[in-house]
């Protein structure tokens, strides 16, 4: 994969050749190599069933890898039971102990570690202050709202200063506004406390806003691990291009390859120049990926022969507040999206013939879907 340019800090967690199967027949995690650096916020992103929770559970010690080894601070942890791993965890449904109060829940990890009363009290109050819930300390989890429960779960996982915190879709049950607010709060905690966080989500915008790095999972394989902007700009294959952000796909066949670029004959007619990212050579089929905001619409009859200029037909336009989208019929793709300035959509009429252009460097030739 993408080799790091600078030698990074030693990995806090290292998955090495991890495979996992539950039934002995199909691998839920196929071959996982993943380094997590100290202080990093790394997100496991992927569609449902892609093996994210399984990966997290193996790290936390609730599932045993079928193959491979996980290292924590360079030490294998196969034989370390969950309660000795010193890994905080926020569960998807929070898993707050219903018979304990909020304060008792937060004190739990301290009291099982036999901290002194005074210290426990002090740290619990600090944690309650951090989540701004001092006044609710003596309520039980059942008497809290979803967002409050979420905060308690967070405080409980952080209060014993674990070296690593795992979060499995911690915001999945919250509404959109609360989710966004909590994203900010978690991000702030991460920055101020300097902890390492492994975060699981299948919400790509959540992953993009919060993470230092994202590991995109599909079908038990990490497709790509990279910074959010790199994932967006330089996806290594069609899955990642499709999964992160909006994306237009055009099918075609590679005609020639010349260093980093190639010429592609589109299935729907016409040829374009594209960056050759994941093509095997001339004659191979490929799918081209173009982001909606990297495409310009030029009115019919206007001059100029750009390198990638394709005829299109306007299907309709969609107004989305801060921007607008034009849906075009381009080559074999009848739902080709182009991002417009808010006012621009008035000038396009359904049925109208136009041209689109995009730069070769914005068009990626990837593996065929």
């Amino acid at each position: 994969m993408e080799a790091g340019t600078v030698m990074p800090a030693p990995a806090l967690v290292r998955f090495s050749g991890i495979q996992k199967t539950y039934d002995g027949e199909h691998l839920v995690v196929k071959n996982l190599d993943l380094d997590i650096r100290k202080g990093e916020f790394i997100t496991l992103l992927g569609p449902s069933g892609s093996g994210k929770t399984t990966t997290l559970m193996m790290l936390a010690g609730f599932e045993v890898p079928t193959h491979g080894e996980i290292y924590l601070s360079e030490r294998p942890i196969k034989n370390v039971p969950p309660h000795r791993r010193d890994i905080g965890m926020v569960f998807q449904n929070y898993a707050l102990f219903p018979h304990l109060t909020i304060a008792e829940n937060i004190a739990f990890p301290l009291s099982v570690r036999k901290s002194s009363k005074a210290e426990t009290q002090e740290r619990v109050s600090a944690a309650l202050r951090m989540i701004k819930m001092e006044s609710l300390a003596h309520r039980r989890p059942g008497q809290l709202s979803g967002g409050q429960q979420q905060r308690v779960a967070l405080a409980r996982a952080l209060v014993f200063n674990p070296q690593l915190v795992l979060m499995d879709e911690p915001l999945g049950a919250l509404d959109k506004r609360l989710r966004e607010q909590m994203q900010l709060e978690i991000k702030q905690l991460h920055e101020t406390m300097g902890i390492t966080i492994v975060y699981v989500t299948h919400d790509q915008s959540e992953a993009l806003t919060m993470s230092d790095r994202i590991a995109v999972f599909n079908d038990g394989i990490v497709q790509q691990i990279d910074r959010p902007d790199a994932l967006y700009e330089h996806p290594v294959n069609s899955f990642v291009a499709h999964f992160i952000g909006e994306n237009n796909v055009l099918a075609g066949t590679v005609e020639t390859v010349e260093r980093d670029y190639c010429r592609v004959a589109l299935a729907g007619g016409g040829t374009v120049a594209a960056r050759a990212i994941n093509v095997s050579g001339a004659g191979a089929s490929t799918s081209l990926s173009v982001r909606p905001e990297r495409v310009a619409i030029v009115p019919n009859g206007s001059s100029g022969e750009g390198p990638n200029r394709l005829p299109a037909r306007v299907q309709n336009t969609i107004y989305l507040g801060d921007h607008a989208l034009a849906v075009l019929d381009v080559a074999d793709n009848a739902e080709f999206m182009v991002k417009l300035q808010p006012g621009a959509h008035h000038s396009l009429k359904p049925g109208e013939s136009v041209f689109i252009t995009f730069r070769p460097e914005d068009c990626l030739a990837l593996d065929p879907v």
Partner: protein
Amino acid sequence: MSDNSSLRTPSQRIAWAATVVVSTLVFIFLMAPILAIMPLSFSSGSYLTYPLPGFSLRWYDDFISSPRWMNSLKNSMIIGIASTLLSMVLGTTAALGLAQWKSRFKPLVLAFVLSPVVVPGVITAVGLYFFFAPIGLTGSYLGLILAHTALATPFVVITVGATLQSFDTNLARAAASLGASPLQAFRRVILPLILPGLASGALFAFATSFDEVVIVLFMAGPEQRTLPREMFSGIRENISPTITAAAVILTTISVILLATLEALRRRNERLKGSGG
């Protein structure tokens, strides 16, 4: 919820009124026997009729000073507590096993385990009578305890099974991730949460044994007569007010059991309100 809001037409209102009236009568029917017998136990006269000639505790005194009644109360307690303990051990382990066991025979095994509840008491009693007599288990405490355990265990399996099913295994994992050893996790998280279920199972088991009379009729010797058995002969011979005192004592015990059960259910309900 929709009782008042949806009663718009007169015919609907009449139907609702009829429901209320019939239900009230049924509630009276259900409660009347219990309410009628209570005051009689405090009567100073020896006839079971109203109006009461006066108030006295003589029948309770009679109950307490009668070795026969007191012995039967003691027997009920011995047999009830012993079969509760035994059925808790057997039923809880079985419920734990059944929760993990996957097999197409499981419904069959479950039906077998629960069948003592459905099979008529007389059939169980007759079978046990034939079976236990040759091995000297009739006329013994042990025989009665074993028989009552068989009747009570299905209730334990049901209640404990339901508790285990509703237990969120993530809580145990959360405890471990927070640093609790398996023993700590069991003592501080799992046990407090399943305890109400276990207690309900125990109460059901005790109530089953405490109320059982058919098997006792067949198998108990004069030494092992339980309170219901003593009442059975009392009713057969002639109903003296002492029986009403015994009835009130039995009912009080039932009410305590029911109230405990209800308290446990409430507590459970309250705890369940979380996590969502």
